[in-house]
């Protein structure tokens, strides 16, 4: 549980973060979005005290972050810095091993952990471990940066645009991996992104910032269906809203009894993917089956379109 309590950061006379309060329940993901310069990075860096707030308090699991010395606090908090910030004079393996080493882990345990993380991020430990960061692509550097942040199994993870340099395929994979890691270890994550798709896909809650202020902090569905201001609405891309809403629902949520012809769809697929498949194949309905292939019923185009409608809006 991260509790940010009326936090403000002022540089000279300009307030970069103004009176922001939000709390992130343990084991959930909060995503911060907002235009460039809106104070996202500053807010994130106040959590591990790379920036000292002008006023306000931050508590992690009830403990004030100022009750620990900064370096001790930071070793407990994973931080994937904007633009990776790998140590250029250390190999990939040494970079990932940084925090475990500072914490005095056994060498064998560190080695195992590094290998596990590299494998998790689709990088062969034997091939990539001994390389220097300059010999990696931008996307690989970013994944190593995230691996370094995760190395000491921190309960809290701060990520500043961690997947910005990844291509869509690897990015989707990295997001799924992050979700899996987060579920397995119950990590509490605060992540900054410019990608609304990513925010909606990963966030349990989304914080929208503008000019240092927190405009709205709510679940993706609520942000989509009840944006607090016009700015929030435009940031989310008004035209894409129905599809974003559909992406939050799986076919399991909209399946109905009955049968249909053609290739079956998986119940795990999002409603957006389902609608897309129906539109593409020109069908009105498709059979739905569970992950192990058991038939569950069918999904119709009308049902999917209803799910994409602003709640409370009466059908015509």
């Amino acid at each position, binding site marked *: 549980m991260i509790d940010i309590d009326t936090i403000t950061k002022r540089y000279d006379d300009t307030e970069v973060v103004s009176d922001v309060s939000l709390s992130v329940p343990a084991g959930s993901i909060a995503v911060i979005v907002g235009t460039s310069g809106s104070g996202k990075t500053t807010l994130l860096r106040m959590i591990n005290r*790379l920036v000292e707030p002008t006023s306000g308090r931050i508590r992690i699991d009830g403990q004030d972050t100022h009750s620990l010395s*900064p*370096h001790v606090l*930071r*070793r407990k908090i994973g931080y994937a810095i904007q633009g990776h*910030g*790998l140590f*250029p*004079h250390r190999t990939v393996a040494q970079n990932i091993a940084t925090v475990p080493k*500072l914490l005095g882990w056994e060498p064998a345990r560190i080695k195992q952990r590094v290998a596990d993380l590299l494998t998790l991020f689709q990088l062969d430990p034997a091939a990539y471990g001994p390389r220097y960061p300059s010999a990696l692509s931008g996307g690989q550097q970013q994944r190593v940066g995230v691996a370094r942040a995760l190395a000491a199994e921190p309960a809290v993870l701060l990520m500043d645009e961690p997947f910005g340099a990844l291509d869509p395929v690897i990015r989707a994979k990295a997001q799924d991996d992050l979700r899996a890691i987060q579920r397995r270890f119950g990590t509490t994550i605060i992540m900054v992104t410019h990608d609304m798709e990513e925010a909606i896909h990963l966030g349990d809650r989304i914080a929208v910032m503008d000019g240092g202020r927190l405009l709205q902090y709510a679940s993706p569905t609520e942000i989509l269906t009840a944006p607090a201001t016009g700015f929030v609405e435009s940031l989310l891309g008004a035209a894409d809203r129905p599809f974003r809403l559909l992406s939050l629902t799986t076919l399991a949520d909209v399946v109905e009894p009955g049968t249909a012809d053609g290739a079956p769809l998986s119940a795990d697929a999002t409603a957006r993917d389902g609608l897309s498949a129906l539109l593409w194949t020109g069908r009105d309905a498709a059979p739905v089956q569970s992950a192990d292939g058991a038939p569950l019923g069918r999904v119709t185009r009308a049902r999917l379109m209803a799910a994409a409608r602003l709640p409370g809006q009466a059908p015509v």
Partner: protein
Amino acid sequence: MTRVWSFLPRMALLAFLIAFLWHPAWFAGLLRPLTENGAPPIYDQGSLALLTLDHLAIVAVATLAASLIAIALAVLVTRPSGREFLPLARSLVNIGQTVPPVAVLALAVPMTGFGEKPTLIALFLYGLLPIFENTLTGLSTVPANVMEAARGVGMTGRQRLWQVELPLAAPIILAGIRLSVVISMATATIGSTVAASTLGAVIIAGLTSNNLAFIVQGGVIVGVIAILIFDALRGLETLLARRAGG
């Protein structure tokens, strides 16, 4: 292949130097045309090899001391607590560079007496500036996001210095030391005017007895060693820079 070719002239130079110091008489024929009236072509007032070792020892001690002090000073004035001393440190180091070594010798002799000590002082003061300035440059050009990451992972100030700042600045610091060593190699020759045992003795003997062969052999030994040290240190820098992801 290209590495071998660039390596070969240096090895030849080193072999020549060792042969010359080992058995100078082999080269007597080469130097005889530079002498007049049957003067000796090879320095005969002492061993060239011993003078060379003394010369190298003085340069090594002076450079080591200058490196330690200059690096420590540069580290100090780049810490938050020492930042205000930067202008002071800079002017101190600059004074060391602007006062000519000859003047330092003249000033130091009354205090320390003749011999190695005044020479060491002169070389030390003269060698500070390049190392100090390069260390400052090296420490202040560590990329901001790397420093940020070093703080973010929870390194203490000391750990950041030893594990991140100094390793990344090492190639630039080494370039400063290289410059300082080469200047000292040449400057150490004037130490023999205050009775320090250096290769300057050979050159001065040549000047006083009007023997060009002495002047040339003293100068050539100093020059060849300077070139070899310069090359070796630059090789080391390249190695470090490559490791630092250059």
